[in-house]
């Protein structure tokens, strides 16, 4: 059975299910959009008022500027280091922020009981979950955009400083950097969805710990894929394949290597990664909604 055939079957299943249930989901979506948007807006506004996020962004900006002090390296190596280090800093801090944001969003509302006032209003539980997720996405988009803008600025400034040097091979590769940063953001978005799913069923501490483990496992996607291909027994192979399905595919979104080594970047792969991540996130959010719906608050 080819992958295309499997995907086609999946598409048929989705279309048929949606067709059968259109009387349920169509009005639900119409009702959900304004509620989700309102909850997302209040989530963003609340995060903006809390200084912690702003402090972390300032820290990252300082780190990115400090990376320009590798001037003893050749320009060719310098651009590679800046791109690599800058994109990796954005990844690390983006994911750390995503973990600490998403792990606290719903549990904190339950703990402080601010959720009671909302759920007593005509807001469905899945709208609440989605609203929190969209709010987190907006916050993370702003943060990643700011960090990327700073990295681009650093690269442009360095390029201006060294371009008159003889045989300068500094190449800021801005198009690649922007693409890699965008893909990075999508990876963070996928991870955030999964963290929110875990937060609907466990405490804040367990959610944070699990998130770090999932991040590490998700970054070892290719290793799991290899192990699954070369597994000794059928049972091990099946287990690893199931793990491969369940784990978020963060390496799909990792283009740092290609960008920092000035290799060809496949935009089509980026698009495929986005499709895969979108499907995974939708499933995760549906599960989160189901769990939160059944949760006694």
């Amino acid at each position, binding site marked *: 059975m080819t*992958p295309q055939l499997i995907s086609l079957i999946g598409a048929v299943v989705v279309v048929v299910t949606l067709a059968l249930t259109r009387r*349920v989901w169509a009005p639900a979506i119409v009702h959900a959009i304004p509620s989700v948007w309102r909850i997302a807006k209040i989530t963003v506004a609340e995060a903006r008022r809390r200084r912690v996020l702003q402090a972390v962004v300032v820290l990252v900006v300082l780190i990115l500027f400090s990376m320009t002090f590798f001037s003893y390296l050749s320009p060719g190596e310098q651009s590679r280091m800046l791109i690599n280090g800058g994109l990796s800093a954005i990844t690390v801090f983006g994911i750390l922020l995503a973990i600490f944001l998403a792990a606290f969003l719903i549990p904190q509302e339950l703990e402080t009981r601010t959720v009671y006032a909302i759920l007593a209003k005509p807001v469905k539980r899945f709208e609440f979950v989605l609203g929190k997720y969209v709010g987190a996405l907006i916050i993370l988009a702003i943060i990643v955009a700011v960090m990327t803008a700073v990295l681009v600025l650093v690269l442009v400034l360095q390029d201006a400083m060294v371009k008159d040097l003889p045989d300068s091979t500094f190449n800021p590769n801005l198009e690649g950097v922007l693409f890699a940063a965008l893909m990075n953001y999508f990876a963070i978005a996928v991870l955030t969805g999964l963290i929110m799913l875990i937060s609907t069923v466990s405490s804040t501490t367990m959610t944070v710990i699990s998130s770090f483990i999932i991040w590490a496992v998700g970054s070892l996607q290719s290793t799991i*894929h290899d192990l699954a*291909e070369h597994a000794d027994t059928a049972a091990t192979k099946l287990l690893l394949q199931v793990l491969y399905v369940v784990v978020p595919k963060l390496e*799909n979104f*990792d283009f740092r290597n290609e960008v920092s080594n000035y290799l060809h970047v*496949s935009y089509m792969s980026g698009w495929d990664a986005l499709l895969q991540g979108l499907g995974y996130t939708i499933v995760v959010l*549906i599960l989160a909604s189901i769990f939160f719906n059944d949760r006694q608050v």
Partner: protein
Amino acid sequence: MRHGKALLGLLMVGILLQTVAPQESIHKARPALFDPNRKTKPVSAISIGPTPAMIAALGGFRTVAADLLWLQAERVWDGGSWWALLPLLDAVTQLDPHFILAWQVYGWHAAYNMHAESETVIDRRYWLARGANILEQAVEANPDNWEIRFELGWTLYDRAHEKKRAAEYFYQADQMPGAKSYVTRLYYRCYEGILDIKDLMPALEYAKKRHTDLAKSDDVQHQVIVNRDYEWWMKHKDDPLEHRRQIVIENTARAQRSVPFYLYPDDPYWDVCPICGLPSKKGSEVCEVCGAPLKAPSQRGPATRGEKKT
């Protein structure tokens, strides 16, 4: 709605099935990451040792780990520990197989520095072979990169004097986008060096057809040089005396630059005198220039005249 959760479950399964094709596309489009048979894999974090690089190597930050180790390699280089460089550069290239400069330095360090440091022929041959092997791995990991093929070709040409193999790599490098004009010229110089007239002339014809954009100064220079060489060889390709003269010119030029003379292991025409360093016809018992007795090729040691470390 009845059976709500069951329908939701079905929807989720359908969505997950839909993601199979895009994931498979990614596996195919990015073999460096996902091909199960890929040659270079991330080195075990344990082999690097408990350092920040090891921590970075775990999960997704291999290129940052490579950079950290590269910086460490720079520091080690400044300290003069050439032996310590080897595992570092090995780790860097394993962690980031696309870091061309690291491969170049690694291969060069083995084939040039460690080769020059060695005291016996056996050690020298080992380092040369190792350098070539490293660069072969680099070529395998970066099949689309002309620079690394050129690097391998140059090492074979300049150090190992395996000019026929070098010519193959120069030719491959020349086919790739971005290759400079000197690659094309080095391709035929390989045949020139071993006086392989049969391959030299087609190589010159090929070089003439390359880099023909007269708006670029590099191309203009290339055409000037190639046409000069082509015309010269058309005049002298059948002239044996000129071959000798050409070799003499080449080696004299080398002596002027204080670059050591080398034995051509597969040279069918000449033996080089260990005293004056000038060639005599193969099989001669005494040097045709200074009269010194010539040893048999198998008894010759490394060339000593004008030898300097790089």
